[in-house]
């Protein structure tokens, strides 16, 4: 079965600004999953969605394809704003689809398209990249500006911090529940987490091992 990796390279992935931790984590996870698929002699392809548009590498099983994918990812710096769902429109039905994103864009459209792929006999994995700074923002007061929408600026001060944490946690739980409700694989990848562990969880889910899925579920519950 061919494996297609869809990697989100919009501006929201370029965070934190200094380390680009979310983007690097997304790249590492994508390369790791490509390597796992290539080991199984499955063709591996890549779609990178950034503000400039999409860059596609069709699935190939030849040697060096993982390196090509890695170089393609290295050439990209996340920026701009663009929906992720259109990138999935040309994907064939029976395919293994891995979506690496923070799902802060068109999350509903992406999930809907992923559900169609799954309904057509495909296999869909959602890897949700979350930075530690998003889970625990700096304690100092600052004006939080959305990197994809400069008009969205709100003061994150001590009084609003608690509400932010509650809303963000509720949204994550809602996203996880909606993906799983459609029978799709959903994995949270923390930036601070070792990539190998994330890859193992995703691969385990791909193999259908209930152990990995249960572990994910427990992790999400926490």
């Amino acid at each position, binding site marked *: 079965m061919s494996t297609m990796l869809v990697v989100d390279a919009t*501006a*929201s*992935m370029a*965070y934190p*600004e200094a380390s680009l931790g*979310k983007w690097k984590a997304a790249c590492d996870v994508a390369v790791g999953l490509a390597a796992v698929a290539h080991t199984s002699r499955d063709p591996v392809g890549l779609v990178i969605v950034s503000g400039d548009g999409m860059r596609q590498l069709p699935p190939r099983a030849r040697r060096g394809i993982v390196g090509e994918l890695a170089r393609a990812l290295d050439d990209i710096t996340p920026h701009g704003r663009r929906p992720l769902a259109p990138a999935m429109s040309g994907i064939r039905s029976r395919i293994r689809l891995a979506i690496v994103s*923070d799902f*802060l864009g068109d999350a509903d459209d992406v999930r809907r398209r992923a559900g169609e792929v799954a309904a057509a006999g495909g296999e869909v994995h959602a890897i949700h990249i979350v*930075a530690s*700074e*998003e889970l625990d*923002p*700096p304690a100092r*007061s*600052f*004006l*939080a*500006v*959305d*990197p*994809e929408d400069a008009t*969205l*600026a*709100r*003061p*994150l*001060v001590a009084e*609003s911090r608690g*509400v*932010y944490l509650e*809303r*963000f946690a509720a*949204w994550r739980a809602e996203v996880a529940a909606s993906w799983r409700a459609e029978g799709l694989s959903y994995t949270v990848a923390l930036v601070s987490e070792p990539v190998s562990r994330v890859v193992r969880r995703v691969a385990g889910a791909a193999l259908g091992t209930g152990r990995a899925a249960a572990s994910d579920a427990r992790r999400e519950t926490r």
Partner: protein
Amino acid sequence: MSFTAPLFAWVGGGLALGVVALHLLAWQRPPASLLPTARFVPDAPLRAVSPAVRPTDLVLLAVRVLAIILVSAALAGPRFAPRVQGLGRVIVVDRSRGRDAWAAIDGVARSVYRSGDALVLFDSAAREVRSPTIDSIEAALPTTQSAGVSAALVAAIRAANRLQRVRDSVEIVVVSPFASDALDAATASIRRLWPGTVRAMRAGTAPNDTTRARPLEIRAGSGDPVSAALALAGVAPAGAVRVVRDWTTARDTAWARQGGAVVVWPSGPAHEGWRARAVPDTVFGVTVSSLVSGLSTPPAPPATVVAPFVRRAAPPPGRVVARWDDGEPAATEVPLGAGCMRSVAVVVPSTGDLALTPAFRRLATQLAGPCLGGHAWVAAPDSVVSTVLPAAGARDAAQTVSAVDFARSDVSIAPWLLGAALVALAAELLIRRRAANATA
């Protein structure tokens, strides 16, 4: 420096600190930072209260604090008067009793006076001496006008209130003979206006309560009719009176100069200086007119005696105190020093009972009275002086005088502070408006 109402100073200090704290906790826009999950931050105004790490508008802050401090200082009433330790005195000196009493008064006043004391001189009017020294007392000229202690006390209290600002305690010292006419009905009430001590120092006369009433002195031979009449009348004159039936001596003259009344009533031939009549005659009657002395005693009614008095001489010129029925003077009086010499040209027969009649006794009593006019005066009793001028003041009066004094003292700087505060507030308005224009 001290404050009349320090509470305002404390409140002003607290307000100033509050303004500084509010300035450091200024509303300001927090620094912007990217956060992909910014949509989960609750929507709120972009300005938030946060500690100003780098305080701005320091000039504006300084002007505001200055305005608050100036207003609070003005309301607190700062007092810069230096407080001088020790007792201050207001020396009130009576110079109304002539030169004879002045020597003693001057000595007592100078022994009490110390540098920095206030000095009030009075006779019928009171006058405070500006920048007095001990020589100011000596330089004062005694007068013979009637004294008014009440007017002197008013001036003294005014000076004492002023002296109170620079002294811990102030007392009023009145140096006077305290003649009975120097005290009036207002003296006691004026005294009560001063809460402090008033020390009455009698000088120029002996204390009245410790001196016996001086008996009438009569120098006459045995069986003298005038002496008998006065003895029957029981005369005890208010002043010093000496009746001389023989010849006057130098001692009599000196005694009169010290305030006594010497009644020269010769029983024999006329004295030197008297005008002898060429032919003795009689007009059968002599009358003593109502004698109004300088004392506060009421005048006695006229006394008339009808008898065949033989007129051999006329008394020397002077103030007429008795007349014959034809109008010629029968007795005259001449001032002498603080006293007087009274000459009586009424020859009393040594035989018969004329001298024993009630009419003659009244006549003799009035002729043996104290001097007329203003030279003779009687000191008020010590008990009267201590009652009218008690040493300790009234407590309620103290509060009244103290409140009046503090309310009107050292407030001159308050208007200036308020004016400076208004200037500071105007400057604050300009600075704030200029800063707003710069921001816009």
